[in-house]
C-alpha cells in the first residue's frame, strides 16, 4: 500500500522537477539573471502599457489608473508612430540584404589565403567595437553639406545635403549601421565557413564549377544556418536603431524622416513623462520583431 502511494508522488515530482532535479541549481543563476534582467522589466512594461503610467518618486502618492488598451489605440493612431514603423521597414529592407551579402562576400574573401589577412579581419571588426558616438561624429563630418562626400561629388551632391534630405537621411543611417555591424557578421560567417568541407569545393571544381558557381552552389548553402542567424540578428538590431537618428539627424529629422520607434520611446517615456505610452510602443515593437524573426526563420530554414 505504502509502495503504491509512493509511486504517484515520485511521478508527480518528476513531472514538476524533471528526471534530473540536480540540474536545477546549475541553471538557477541564469534563470535568476533572466528573471531580473528580462522577465521583470518585460512584466513591468506590459503592466505600464495598460496604465496611465509615469515614473514617480518612491513613496509619492500618485494616480496611475488602469486605462485598458488606450495607450495601444493612441500609439496605433499616431501618425508619427506610423512614420517610425515605415522607417523600420525601409531600414530593414536596406540593411538586412546588404548586411548578408557584404558579410558573406567579405567572409569568403577573408577565408582565403590573401595577403594581410589578419589586418583585414581586424579592420572590418574595428567599427563594431568603436563607440557609436565616435562613429556618428565621423559620419557627420563625411555627409555634412560641406563634408568630404559632397566635396568629392561636387555638382552631383544632393540638395539639400544628405542628412537633412528626406529621401537620403534614412538610407544613410541604414548604411552607417550596416557598416558598423558588418565586422560582427563577418565573424559569424567566418566561423560557419570553417564547417564547409573542402571536399565539396574540390568536387565542384572537378565538375567544372568556377569561383562564382562554387560560391553559390557550395558556400551559400553551406552557411545557411549562419545566414538565418545573421538575418534574425540584423533584423532585431535594425528594428531597435536609436543612436543614429538621435545623434546623426538631430533627433529623427528632417521632419521625422529618420525617426525610429525606439527614439519615440525615449522622447515619450523619458523626456515627456509618458512612460505608459512608451511602453505600449515597446510592446508593439517587440511583437513585430518577434513575428518578423519567426517568419525569417520559417523562410530560411524550410527545406
Amino acid at each position, binding site marked *: 500500500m505504502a509502495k503504491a502511494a509512493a509511486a504517484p508522488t515520485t511521478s508527480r515530482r518528476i513531472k514538476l522537477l524533471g528526471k534530473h532535479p540536480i540540474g536545477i541549481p546549475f541553471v538557477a543563476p541564469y534563470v535568476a539573471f533572466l528573471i531580473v534582467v528580462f522577465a521583470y522589466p518585460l512584466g513591468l512594461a506590459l503592466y505600464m502599457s495598460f496604465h496611465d503610467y509615469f515614473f514617480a518618486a*518612491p513613496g*509619492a502618492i*500618485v494616480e496611475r489608473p488602469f486605462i485598458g488598451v488606450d495607450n495601444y489605440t493612441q500609439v496605433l493612431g499616431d501618425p508619427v508612430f506610423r512614420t517610425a514603423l515605415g522607417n523600420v521597414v525601409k531600414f530593414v529592407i536596406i540593411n538586412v540584404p546588404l548586411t548578408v551579402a557584404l558579410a558573406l562576400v567579405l567572409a569568403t574573401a577573408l577565408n582565403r589565403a590573401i595577403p594581410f589577412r589578419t589586418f583585414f579581419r581586424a579592420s572590418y571588426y574595428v567599427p563594431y567595437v568603436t563607440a557609436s558616438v565616435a562613429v556618428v561624429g565621423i559620419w557627420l563630418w563625411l555627409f555634412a553639406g560641406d563634408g568630404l562626400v559632397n566635396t568629392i561629388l561636387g555638382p552631383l551632391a544632393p540638395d539639400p545635403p544628405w542628412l537633412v534630405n528626406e529621401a537620403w537621411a534614412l538610407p544613410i543611417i541604414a548604411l552607417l549601421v550596416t557598416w558598423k555591424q558588418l565586422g560582427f557578421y563577418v565573424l559569424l560567417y567566418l566561423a560557419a565557413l570553417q564547417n564547409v568541407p573542402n571536399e565539396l569545393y574540390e568536387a565542384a571544381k572537378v565538375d567544372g564549377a568556377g569561383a562564382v558557381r562554387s560560391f553559390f552552389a557550395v558556400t551559400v548553402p553551406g552557411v545557411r544556418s549562419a545566414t538565418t542567424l545573421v538575418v534574425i540578428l540584423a533584423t532585431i538590431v535594425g528594428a531597435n536603431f536609436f543612436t543614429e537618428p538621435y545623434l546623426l539627424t538631430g*533627433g529623427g529629422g528632417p521632419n521625422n524622416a529618420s525617426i525610429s520607434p525606439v527614439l519615440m520611446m525615449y522622447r515619450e517615456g523619458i523626456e515627456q513623462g509618458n512612460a505608459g505610452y512608451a511602453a505600449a510602443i515597446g510592446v508593439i515593437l517587440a511583437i513585430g520583431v518577434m513575428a518578423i524573426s519567426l517568419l525569417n526563420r520559417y523562410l530560411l530554414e524550410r527545406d
Partner: protein
Amino acid sequence: MKARLRLVALGTALLALAAACGGDEAVDTEEAAQATGPIDIWYSDNPEEITWGKQAVEAWNADHPDEEVTGEKIPAGETSEEVIGAAIAAGNTPCLVFNTAPAAVPQFEKQGGLVALDDFPGAPEYIEGRSGDVAEQYKSPDGNYYQMPWKANPVMIFYNKKVFEKAGLDSENPPLATYDEFLETAQTVIDKGGVEAAIWPAPSSEFFQSWFDYYPLFIAATDGQTALVEDGKAQFTSAEGIAVAEDFWAPMYEQGLAKRETYNGDAFADEKSAMAIVGPWAIAVYGEAIEWGVAPVPTADGISPEQTYTFSDEKSIGMYSACENRGTAWEFLKFATSKANDGKLLELTGQMPLRPDLTSTYADYFKKNPEYEVFADQAERTVEVPVVPNSIEMWQEFRDAYSSSVIFGKESPDEALTTAAKSIESLISEE
C-alpha cells in the same frame, strides 16, 4: 507538462504583481521641513558655475559644521531634465538642484519629485522680495512655488563685427531692428561677409530648441504680454505669432540665410555664421576670440531696445522630495541667493541673478564690466516659459509643427501652427 505550465503561470503572475507593487518609503514631509543636518546639492556643469558653486559651499560649510553641504556637478546626460527625472524615479535626487529648468517643473511636480517651498514660513515673501513681479511667472497652477527663480540669461542677437565690416555694414549700429532690415542684412553678410549662414540656430527637433529661435521673437512681437500659452489658450496663432514664423524665420530658411543642417560644433565661434541668439554667458565664451556686438531681437516694425522683451532662459533652484534635511536645504537656498552670493554669481559667471534693478544693486560690477550692462538692462524685460501641465510635450508638439513648416517648408506655417495649437490646448488642459 500541466504542472510546469502552472509553475510558469504562477511565476508570471508573481512578476506582474512585483512589477505593479514596486514602492519605497517616502520622506515624512512635516518632520523633514524642520530637520537639519548634512545635505547634497547639484550645480550645472559649466566651469564658471562650478567655481561659483564651490565657493558658496565652502563659505557655508565654514560657518555650519553640523549642516555640511556637499556640492557636485550634475551627472552627465543629454539634458539636465533627463538626469533629474531619472533621479526622481530612483529616489536619489540631492536636496537642491541649481539647474532646474522651469519647463520641466510641472513634470517633476507630477512625479512627486519637488517640495513646495511654501512649506517653509516666509518663503513666498522671500521669493517675491528678491525677484519682484517676475516671480509670479514661476508659480504653479496650484498657487505654490515648486521652484525658486534664480538667474536669467536673457537672449539677444550677438553679431561678428568683422564680418559685418567686411560686408560693408555699420558694425556699431547694424540694421537689425525690423524683420525686413534683418533679412536684408542677413543676405548682405552671406553675399559679402564670407560666412555660410547669417544665423545658425540648431534646426534639430529637440523640444527646447524653439526657445532659441521662435520664442524670443514671439515674446518681442507681443511686447512681452503673453507666453506661448495663456489661460489654457495657445497664443502663437495671433497675427504677431504667425508673422514671426511666416515673415521672419520661414524666409530665413527658404533663402538659405539660416541652415537646415545641424552644425557640428559652434557655428558662431567658428565664424561660419555672422550672428547667434545667445545670453550673457556668450561674453565669456566668445569675448576673446571674436569682436562682437549685441542687438535686441528684431520685431516686425522695430521697437526701441528699451522696450524690447525677450526670452529669459532662466534656471531655477528646485528642492527635491528625496531630501531629508529640508530645514538646512531651505537655509542654504536663502544663503545661496543672498545679495552677496548673487553678486558673486554675477562676477564669476556673468549670468544675471533674478533681481530687479541689477545695475544699481551691483553698480561697481557694471562699472568694471560695462559690456554686461546691456544684458542686465534686458533682464528687466523677460518672459518665461509658461508653467502648465505637460509642458515638455507641449514644446515638442510646437517644435514638430515649426520644424515641418518653417524649417523644412512642408506645409504653411499658419496651418501647421493652427493644428499644433489645437493639440497643445488639449494637452495643457489635461492634469
